[in-house]
């Protein structure tokens, strides 16, 4: 082994780089539309999960993230369908509107404590659904809105046609996930981000140290809202339909499960892993023929993962442990188990 290079740090990163490279090659490796579609959808949900994890970093447990997907989706749907705006401005506005709603709601709601915040956000998911249902003139009620795919992009002599195939959507999703991941990672690494973690661990102390609690919570909530709004818009234009029932309480719960199972210690990697693994697991389960076995196995799988993973970790933390324990055969530094 080369002694002058910190290979233990570099090799895992090379492997990750290879995996990312492979991801870009997926549409070349498999042209299976159903598979691409599944990966695209897991990517979209991964963005919503990243939003949840960011908000969780500030100590708040939001069960309403699906509502922001709805707001983003409906905004871009209404703008493109009813006001005939082109796709890209609508997409951008979807994120902005979602962010504005998040900041307004956040300013009012984030000051209440943990469990109360969760219940309010839970109620929020349902209220957004009810508004979607009742506000007929704008949202067309339960019928929903039919959107169109983004228009073709012409680059030189080369045309990217969304209507003809899933592949453009795939790259769009990968880019969006990558951008969101980078932004969130940067936030997590920044001074602001590290104070988030402080807020989560000990709000009282953080406040005494001069960190303005509410300001950071609202910022996190808003940023999460913006990107979740983008995800919602992409979702609506990918499925070419949006109805009020696509984003309710149970969708918010799925987002939360993906986040916790994926691992909340990481703002980008954890959510991505959680979303992809659980989404593909759910999809695979639909092939099984026994009626009722899907929720049984899904619930069982999540329970087993949570029981057997060490406290406070998710699947993403296994990556680090895999390298230290299995590949490098190091002895892990372990905290002493404190008796409760």
């Amino acid at each position: 082994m080369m002694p002058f290079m910190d290979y233990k740090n570099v090799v895992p990163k090379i492997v990750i780089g290879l995996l990312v490279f492979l991801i870009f090659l997926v549409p070349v490796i498999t042209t299976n539309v159903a598979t691409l579609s599944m990966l695209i959808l897991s990517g979209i949900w991964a963005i919503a999960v990243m939003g949840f994890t960011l908000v969780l970093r500030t100590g708040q447990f939001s069960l309403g993230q699906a509502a922001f997907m709805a707001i983003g989706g409906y905004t871009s749907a209404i703008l493109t369908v009813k006001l005939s705006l082109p796709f890209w401005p609508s997409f951008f506005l979807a994120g902005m509107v979602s962010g504005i709603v998040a900041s307004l709601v956040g300013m009012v709601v984030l000051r209440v404590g943990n469990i109360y915040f969760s219940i309010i956000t839970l109620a929020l998911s349902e209220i957004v659904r009810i508004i979607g249902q009742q506000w007929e003139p704008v949202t067309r009620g339960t019928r929903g809105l039919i959107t169109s795919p983004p228009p073709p992009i012409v680059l030189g002599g080369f045309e990217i046609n969304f209507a003809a195939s899933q592949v453009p959507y795939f790259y769009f999703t990968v880019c969006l996930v990558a951008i969101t991941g980078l932004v969130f990672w940067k936030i997590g690494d920044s001074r602001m981000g590290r104070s988030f973690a402080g807020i989560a661990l000990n709000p009282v102390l953080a406040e005494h140290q001069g960190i303005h609690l509410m300001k950071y919570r609202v910022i996190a909530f808003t940023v999460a809202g913006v990107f979740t709004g983008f995800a919602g818009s992409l979702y609506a234009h990918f499925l070419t339909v949006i109805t009020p029932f696509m984003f309710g309480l149970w969708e918010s719960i799925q987002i939360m499960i993906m986040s916790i199972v994926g691992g909340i210690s990481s703002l980008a990697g954890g959510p991505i892993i959680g979303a992809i693994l659980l989404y593909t697991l759910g999809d695979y389960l639909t092939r099984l023929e026994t009626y009722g076995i899907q929720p049984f196995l899904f619930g069982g799988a999540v329970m087993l993962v949570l029981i057997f993973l060490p406290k406070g970790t998710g699947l993403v933390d296994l990556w680090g442990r895999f390298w230290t324990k299995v590949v490098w055969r190091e002895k892990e530094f372990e905290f002493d188990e404190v008796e409760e």
Partner: protein
Amino acid sequence: MPPAGIWIDGLIQSCIYMTMAFGMVLVFSILGILNWAHGQFYMFGAIIVYYTVTAGGIPFPISILISGLLMAVLGISVKKLVIDRVKGDLYVGVVTISLIFFFEGAASILFGMQDRGLSMLLPGVMNLGSFSISYQKVAVLIFTLVVMVAMYIVLNRTKVGRAIRATAQQPDAASLYGVSVERLSLTVMGIGCGLAAMAGSIMAPVYSINPFMGRIPMIMALLAIVIGGIGSLTGAIVGGIILGFLNSVIAYYLSYFSEVVLFLLVIFILLVRPQGLFGASLK
């Protein structure tokens, strides 16, 4: 002024919300966690009673006790095998949510997903002038009264009850006095789940039985707890009563809008007075 039938209907709804909320709060005040799968114990209670009555021919009251006992055992097992192995309130919450899917899936496989009914149990109605009430609903009223009295006696007059109240207020002091918090948690989990199951059993003939019947009672119990105050047993009862009557009266005037009104009410309470009517102020 809504007709008498609406008020009686509200009363019956209150009974169920109250019982479910009481069970959830009991578990919350000792274990510190909300059992999101509480509704699924309700559902299993109904399913067990279905089988004991139709296939086993066991009389209804005994069936109710059997389902309560069986689900108490299941609740204790869940606590020991699942909840205790998961550390951190956050993770325990997620684990009980995944239990929802796990239990509903199991019920779908074993019981099937089609609705079944027990309408032939306690058939007939009691005519009281301008309205009538079915005997099944009268049974719900009697059941709730019995349960509430029993809970009062247990909590205030027995050693176990004293231990529960002590631990709810001051777990460390209680353990200094010789209360095994560990053992008590199991007991309370059993009582809470048993209550949910018996509520499901007594309601089984009133509506229909299917694997998903536990979802709405759990959400309603949650709303009742918010109104009454998280952590307060009195709050659970009062919250259940208020919610039950509100639901029926608003549905009478505004039909499906009652959904919206209740959610808005809950949000309003959480913003203005998060501790509800009787709850202690949490940070």
